[in-house]
């Protein structure tokens, strides 16, 4: 065989290139918290958090108990408003608008920024009514059946419940109930879904389903998840924020130690405290 250049040598089929990893570069900033501190009464729970969360990414918040992860998460859709004595300093900019500014309606904030909690908490109603509930309250009643079906499909639950929509939600397994709560949250077409330990009450199979679901949902929504389970953050998140507890004379409060691409946090964190936590050496 005469060959003069590499191009003529044994042509090969090039396998498909690796799907580009999702990164924050060029993405719209959904949340931009600036020196955000949250206190309960006189006690500071979490202090001075400055962090940007990006569109269509999963942002995970990890850290030891008491470091203010959930408090921070709940500040992103004004859930802490419901706790007497809770105070917020600094800013939470959501698409450049401060959600704590005068005149901002917290109900509208929560419609755009939905939330799923640790323990599945369906209403004592039928599967259908659980999903339709928010839609009815908000007057989104046109094509109600379609909206319910779409939400249940997006939450990867439709096939399992389509024949028993009128049955009570409590007849579902824990994992199914949690996916129902996700369906309920996304039915009203929010922009963001906040998830506070969404799988910690579930068995490993149900957990894996929720994690798979998050990979699907991030195509349509921006997700922020708090998790105790570091490996879960490693598996599902594009960006990871590590919070830790800073001890002070008056006790201690949560601080943001490091925020970076998940890959970086789990392979080469910049801060010794992060390294200590993710390697399990302390925390």
């Amino acid at each position, binding site marked *: *065989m*005469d*060959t*003069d*250049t*590499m191009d003529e*040598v*044994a042509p*090969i*089929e*090039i*396998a*498909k290139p*690796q*799907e580009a990893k999702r990164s924050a570069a060029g993405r719209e900033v959904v949340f931009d918290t600036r020196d955000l501190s949250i206190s309960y009464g006189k006690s500071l729970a979490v202090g001075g958090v400055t962090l940007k969360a990006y569109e269509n990414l999963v942002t995970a918040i990890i850290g030891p108990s008491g470091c203010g992860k959930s408090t921070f998460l709940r500040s992103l859709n004004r859930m802490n408003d419901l706790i007497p004595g809770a105070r917020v300093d600094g800013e939470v900019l959501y698409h450049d608008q401060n959600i704590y500014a005068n005149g901002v309606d917290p109900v509208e904030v929560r419609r755009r920024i939905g939330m799923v909690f640790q323990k599945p908490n369906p209403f004592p109603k039928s599967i259908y009514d659980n999903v339709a509930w928010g839609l009815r309250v908000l007057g989104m009643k046109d094509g109600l059946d379609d909206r319910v079906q779409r939400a249940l499909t997006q939450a990867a639950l439709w096939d399992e419940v389509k024949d028993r929509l009128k049955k009570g939600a409590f007849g579902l397994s824990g994992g199914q109930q949690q996916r129902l709560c996700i369906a309920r949250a996304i039915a009203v077409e929010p922009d963001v879904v906040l998830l506070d330990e969404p799988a910690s009450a579930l068995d490993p*199979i149900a957990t*894996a*389903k929720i*994690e*798979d679901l998050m*990979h699907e949902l991030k195509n349509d929504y921006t997700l922020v998840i708090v998790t105790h389970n570091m*490996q879960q953050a*490693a*598996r599902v998140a594009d960006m990871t924020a590590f919070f830790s507890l800073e001890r002070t004379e008056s006790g201690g409060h949560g601080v943001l130690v490091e925020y970076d691409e*998940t*890959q970086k946090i*789990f*392979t080469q964190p910049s801060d010794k405290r992060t390294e200590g936590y993710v390697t399990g050496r302390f925390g």
Partner: protein
Amino acid sequence: MAEQMRVTFQDELEQVEAALQEEGDYVLRSLRATVNALEQADSELADEVIAFDDEIDNRYFSIQEGIQSLLARQTPVAVDLRLVLAMLHTNLHLERMGDYCVTIAKLTKLASDAEQDERLVQAFEEMGQRAEEMIRVALVSFQRRDLAGASSLVDLDELIDRANRRAVERVLDFADDVSKREWGLRMIIVSRCLERIGDHAVDIGEQTAYLITGEFREFTDASHPAGS
């Protein structure tokens, strides 16, 4: 009900494995050009082989990064863990094969003005073909999880080893001829590089065997030659 779970993880594993096969294709392409450059004393083609090694290295690093990500983020276990570890080794073996091609290409350039020995050049063509065949068998056995195919690499390696010994003997035959001596010495290294490429193919076969059986073992080594 066996639904597929952890879809993203499985996708990532498949992507890394596909990239590994692609790296293997690049090595085959490099080896073919290396042997052609050697036969035709073609310095330009040798330069292309040297430059092309960057392509192989890029894939090597990208696979390394993919494996790092899988280990850091997905905690693979059981067959997934074995696959990740086998890919980690195989990646390095392929990259080393690419480096041997570069060494041969450099020697080709150094020896391009010298008079060649026709018989030796023919022997290298044969060794090159055997090395290519071994790489193909190694890659396909890995892809198909084919233990028998992977084990067959030991016998194929025996053939390339013999060819290497014959090449050395051939150089000794004309070593008295001063005009050919320098070229001959360089060609002993070329022969050695081709033989080492075969060894790396056997090592990939061992990784395939580990992937399938979970046992760490060498097919053969210096202290336990084949058939003993």
